[in-house]
């Protein structure tokens, strides 16, 4: 019979060390993130004014689909998603390709310029865009000066133009951010691949589509998921730029949740239900994205 060893075996020690490193962080995530998520879900099953909530099953979720403003906000958010994200990503990848050119002078300067918008505070830039597009703002004055218009156009007072202003603001802000990711991805492509393509007679455009984009696929998938996540949760622009837009034309889902809880008569259960809806949407879209883009297997 083998004598039992005193203390732990080496393997057990390593396992214990592993758990010791994991537990503090996991515990913190569990308490700070997962526990509130669970409580929020429970709250979403309740309804009532302020603190006087009572259990109501899934009525909040059913109610969401009759809430005209909420449905409007879902439509608006998807509008931003479908229009803004492709424009932004295409622009980002083109800029990254341009600024990856080794022979370009002042590359660092241009890269900084394109990335600088990301360093601005969300609230500040939204306010500034609002001033720019005001009826007597800079853009209107410039257009009048150039003779294109004879009196200021109410950008933020018309539904479609307000949405376009938000899209312009988003593209301005986030293109640099995604460009940096693409630049990093481009650095990983060896120059020899491009040399080989040049020898084979491929022009710039063909090189771009046949070599660069496929090699950048993981990065593209990642930025796409991040953009979907960010756009679906859009809040600051909706609040500060247009305040929900002319008659809820630009309101986003998060903004509506905020209004429901803090602006109107607070119904926290309903707000939680809508938040969970956003969460499920993001999860589904990210999942689809990964499945479609994952060509590894």
């Amino acid at each position: 019979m083998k004598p039992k060893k005193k203390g732990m075996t080496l393997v057990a020690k390593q396992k214990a060390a592993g758990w010791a490193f994991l537990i503090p962080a996991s515990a913190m995530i569990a308490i700070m993130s997962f526990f509130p998520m669970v409580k929020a879900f429970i709250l979403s099953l309740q309804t009532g004014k302020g603190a006087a909530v009572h259990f109501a099953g899934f009525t909040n979720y059913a109610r969401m689909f009759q809430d005209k403003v909420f449905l409007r906000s879902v439509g608006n958010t998807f509008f931003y998603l479908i229009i803004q994200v492709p424009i932004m990503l295409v622009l980002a990848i083109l800029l990254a390709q341009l600024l990856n050119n080794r022979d370009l002078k002042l590359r660092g300067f241009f890269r900084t310029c394109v990335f600088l918008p990301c360093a601005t505070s969300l609230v500040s830039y939204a306010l500034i865009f609002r001033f720019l597009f005001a009826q007597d703002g800079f853009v209107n004055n410039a257009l009048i000066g150039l003779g294109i218009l004879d009196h200021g156009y109410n950008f933020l007072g018309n539904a479609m133009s307000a949405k376009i202003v938000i899209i312009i603001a988003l593209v301005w802000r986030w293109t640099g951010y995604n460009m940096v990711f693409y630049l990093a991805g481009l650095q990983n492509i060896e120059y020899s691949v491009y040399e080989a393509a040049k020898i084979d007679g491929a022009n710039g455009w063909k090189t771009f589509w046949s070599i660069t984009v496929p090699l950048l696929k993981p990065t593209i998938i990642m930025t796409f998921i991040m953009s979907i996540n960010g756009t679906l949760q859009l809040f600051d622009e909706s609040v500060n730029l247009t305040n929900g837009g002319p008659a809820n034309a630009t309101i986003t889902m998060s903004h509506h949740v905020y209004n429901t809880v803090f602006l109107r008569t607070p119904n926290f259960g309903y707000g939680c239900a809508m938040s969970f809806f956003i969460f499920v949407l993001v999860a589904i879209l990210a999942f689809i994205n990964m499945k479609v883009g994952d060509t590894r297997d």
Partner: protein
Amino acid sequence: MKKKVISLMLVGAMVASMAACGSNGGSDNAAKGNTSATEEGGASEGGNTLTVWTWDPAFNISAIEEAGRMYKEDMGHSDFNLKVVETLSEDCEKKLISAAQSGDLSTLPDIVLMQDNSYQKFVSIYPEAFTDLTDSGIDFSQFAAGKLSYSTVDGKNYGVPFDNGAVIGAYRTDILEEAGYTVADLTDIDWNQFIEIGKTVKEKTGKYILSGQADSPDMIMEMLQSAGASLFDEDGKPAMTDNAALKECIEIYKTMVEEGIYYEVNSWDEYITSITGGSTCGVINGNWISATIMGMKDTEGKWGITNMPKLVKTPNATNYSNNGGSSWYITENCKNKDLAIDFLKSTFAGSTEFYDNVLKQTGAIATYAPAAASEAYAQEVPFYNNQQIYKTIVDYSVKTPTNNTSPYYYDGRNAIGTQIQNIIQGADVDSAIADAQAEVEFTMSE
């Protein structure tokens, strides 16, 4: 070795900057809300100190600090201390929601200023957050009835009314003259006559006669209240469809925009600019807008104040209405309620001298009836061409009709504000109102 030292230094610098950032960020946030206070926090302390949350240094804060000074020095409470924590109105409301929702009222101050429009919402959801003042000895009969209704629930008084939100019409006399009118032509008229005058003014001078935010229902609500009408019925249920008064107000508003005499802007700062930049020669709003008007120093002596036009078809139409205004409330977290009640009773609810001083400093006009009889209120104001505006405004507030309020008042206002924009863009008035009603009913359904 060198690399190790450098990397250690960098890590140290990072940690230090994060710590500094953290505490700086914290105190920065507090400092933003505390420009006139000494410490952060702002919760009730008890003892001889009263903590107050309010906003607007030129107006409310100046007034309550004057009250504190008078209470301490002139009324002999030398150990009294007043701590004012500057908190914007929306922030007051959000903090109240957060505190009351969590059940932990300990972060609340002793006294908080709240806008009259929103108070009913708060007291219906969180009645436990406010103190009933009905039997506290404060004499509520001296306040205008229309104003008191905002802070009264089920016959119980919760708030001490403060500033007067009576609606005034302020007009540039020189521009009116150019078009051939005087301020008297705009007094005691109805909206049809007003629209005619507006059209002539626009034709002859190119100026709008009114302006306002496109998504703000202020103008419509002012018109409604001028006839004692409301978006809600006596039971607090939304009564927007089949509401002839509302329909008339919307139609008048639509006509003004279409005729080009009402300038619609998109945000609050644009609204202020439309006044100070001179795009409009007239303003109809709560009299607190006078502070903005009086900021236009180079137009001194060229403004006149009168009442607003009255509705044509609606019965009980008057030329008087209310927009805004707030009242002081004592929270349940107040540790020294007797002190707070005595403080409010001696100043806001008892001292005409207080209101005189406040009038000089801030232009804040009382809803306290005895105050209106004092000399300061009878003074002629040079800016308004030596009109006795203060007396006039208090007089308007007394004549303002009351109307039905509701905890969902804000929701109703919001819904109408949204639908107005649709109506201006061409939507059918009846279906837009029906949508607004449906929205409010949806919010009210639990």
